[in-house]
């Protein structure tokens, strides 16, 4: 498992020399403090994970901590909740979430990459002014866009369609994407671009063969940021897709289930984990880019 520490900062790796050994004797309180907070932070999700594998009746009858008396009793454990949840609409919602998320990540990246290239390496009237304006759009909260866009969508009958939400997510994600990509592409050595031009490459070739491959780190960071954003998004999905079953995504499905009260209580833990599984996999597999992607978003308004 790659770890958070390595990700943090280029300078961190250089300066994190092992602390002098004379501090070893005082480590116990440090372990205690760190352990206590880490435990507090883990208990909520751990409890939910345990619950999700318990018998439905047991979930309703007692707290998850009571299982510690019967850990080795195989009758106490079941995947029935997961089966029920998947059949009850979450498999469908999972597919919908994928169908929303993949284009909603790829479209803004593509559109932003072309724009960022133009801002970095092409000459045109008003170039810097327009770029500054794009960066300025970072301050606009999503909430400012909801009412007018929903009105238009409803009028032309595209509320509740996949392309409608792809383009909305693309539009909302563009300022950050252009900002990050342009700043990264701008730091590529101009001698490289120039020599490619001298060799007869046109802009499209330079872009696809040279600039895009060199920009993979920043593309990956943004892709992960946007993936998490869209996958975990509830507001945009609620407003533009709603509860309509054929298009509802995981977060909407989960909030619906959570609102149904005691009757569906035993399904909630498993359902919650179905919605979390993909981000968690990405988290463990790509922690390095994951942290970078999140920090990249810190300029977003």
């Amino acid at each position: 498992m790659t770890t958070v520490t390595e990700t943090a900062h280029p300078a961190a790796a250089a300066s994190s020399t092992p602390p002098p050994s004379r501090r070893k004797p005082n480590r116990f309180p440090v372990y205690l403090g760190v352990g206590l907070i880490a435990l507090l932070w883990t208990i909520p999700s751990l409890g939910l994970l345990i619950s999700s594998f318990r018998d439905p009746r047991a979930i309703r009858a007692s707290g998850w901590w009571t299982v510690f008396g019967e850990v080795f009793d195989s009758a106490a454990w079941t995947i029935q909740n997961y089966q029920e949840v998947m059949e009850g609409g979450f498999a469908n919602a999972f597919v919908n979430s994928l169908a929303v998320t993949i284009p909603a990540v790829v479209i803004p990246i593509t559109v932003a990459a072309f724009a960022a290239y133009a801002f970095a390496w092409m000459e045109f009237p008003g170039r810097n002014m327009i770029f500054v304006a794009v960066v300025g759009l970072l301050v606009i909260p999503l909430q400012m866009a909801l009412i007018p866009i929903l009105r238009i969508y409803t009028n032309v009958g595209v509320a509740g369609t996949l392309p409608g939400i792809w383009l909305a997510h693309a539009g909302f994600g563009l300022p950050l994407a252009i900002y990050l990509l342009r700043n990264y592409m701008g730091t590529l050595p101009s001698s490289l671009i120039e020599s490619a031009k001298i060799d007869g490459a046109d802009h499209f070739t330079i872009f696809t063969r040279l600039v895009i491959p060199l920009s993979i780190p920043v593309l990956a960071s943004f892709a992960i940021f946007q993936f998490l954003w869209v996958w975990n998004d509830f507001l945009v999905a609620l407003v533009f897709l709603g509860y309509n079953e054929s298009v509802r995504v995981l977060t909407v499905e989960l909030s619906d289930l959570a609102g149904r009260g005691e009757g569906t209580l035993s399904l909630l833990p498993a359902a919650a984990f179905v919605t979390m599984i993909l981000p968690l996999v990405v988290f463990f597999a790509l922690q390095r880019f994951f942290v970078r992607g999140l920090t990249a978003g810190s300029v977003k308004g």
Partner: protein
Amino acid sequence: MTTPPIGREEVTAAPTVPVEEGAKDNSFLAWILRILSALVVPAVLVLFFFAFEFLQRRDTNKLVQIGTALVVGVLGVWVLYWGMDRLVSALPARTGAGVRPFAFAGPAMVLLGFYLVYPAVNTFILSFQNDAGDAFVGLANFQRIFTETTYLVAIRNSVGWALLVPAAAVGIGLYFATLADRLPRRSEATAKSLLFLPMAISFVGASVVWTFIYRFRPEGFGEQIGILNAIVTGFGGEAVDWLAVPLWNNLFLMVILVWLQTGFAMVILSSAIKAVPEEIVEASRIDGANEWQVFRRIVIPSISSTIVVVWTTILITTWKVFDIVYVMTGGREGTSVVAQQMVAEFFTFNNDGIGAALAVVLFIAVVPILVINVKRFRAQEATR
């Protein structure tokens, strides 16, 4: 210095690009071609999408639909840009060179115009109109927001969130990062991962996680399965309906966001702490400073700019919080916040005027924070 790895770049001077033939062509025809080239990709994209959308309504196989959607949504965009580039290449070389930047950057501008610029302006206008949107009412919407209890409660709560959540997340994150810095590398990494993990979880998911903490059952309705009430009753106390205790329930909701955001604060602050030069820290220790003095006088001043960045980032997230309140209480029991009230107004009650005015309130409050942040970024860039 020590801001997040990416994101610290400011608008740097554009790299010098040799002026291409045609770039300075300002003839009428050139501009027509430029605007056209910017519009083609988005227009075809939209047509493409909705033609597909129309076709698939008759189709029944879900996976086939999704598969086509992905191909269209993912490959289609690339093909469009490629096609546009070919078209521009077919123009006379001089004109083409002047048009190409617009074929590249134009589609993004069109999308931004439609999804951000137009709606933002429109929302401003709507905020001065009545709820049906057919008459101007001046500042009446804002007057209502700042006088009626419903909205004042939402504003009070939002301000409370904005004050407490960033403070708690940064405080705990900083404390944890400082302690973890003293651990062996491996333990440090594991501990940090545990704290950071909630960042992967959606706000809705986190709310479900925490319903199992706050769950309450009245006497006689079975055992307490919420861990908090289990502890309280275990010590002989009486079970509490946490989310219905006036004022305190807001605090309990805030805990959820603190749980989600602390990892973010911790990771960034940790890398800042590690970038504090070891020699300075060692030198002050040799001079007799104790650990608290080192922390207070050396570490804190060195990472102060990072603290500001982290604080404001979390502040902005907190200010716009919606999902947690919507899922946990729906804004009942005096727990509403501005962003959630805004959605309730326009989405549930069709009060577009008030909804737009609330959105404007959200926006106006964020602007100064971001301006300060950007200024700091610039100052940092200048001293780097």
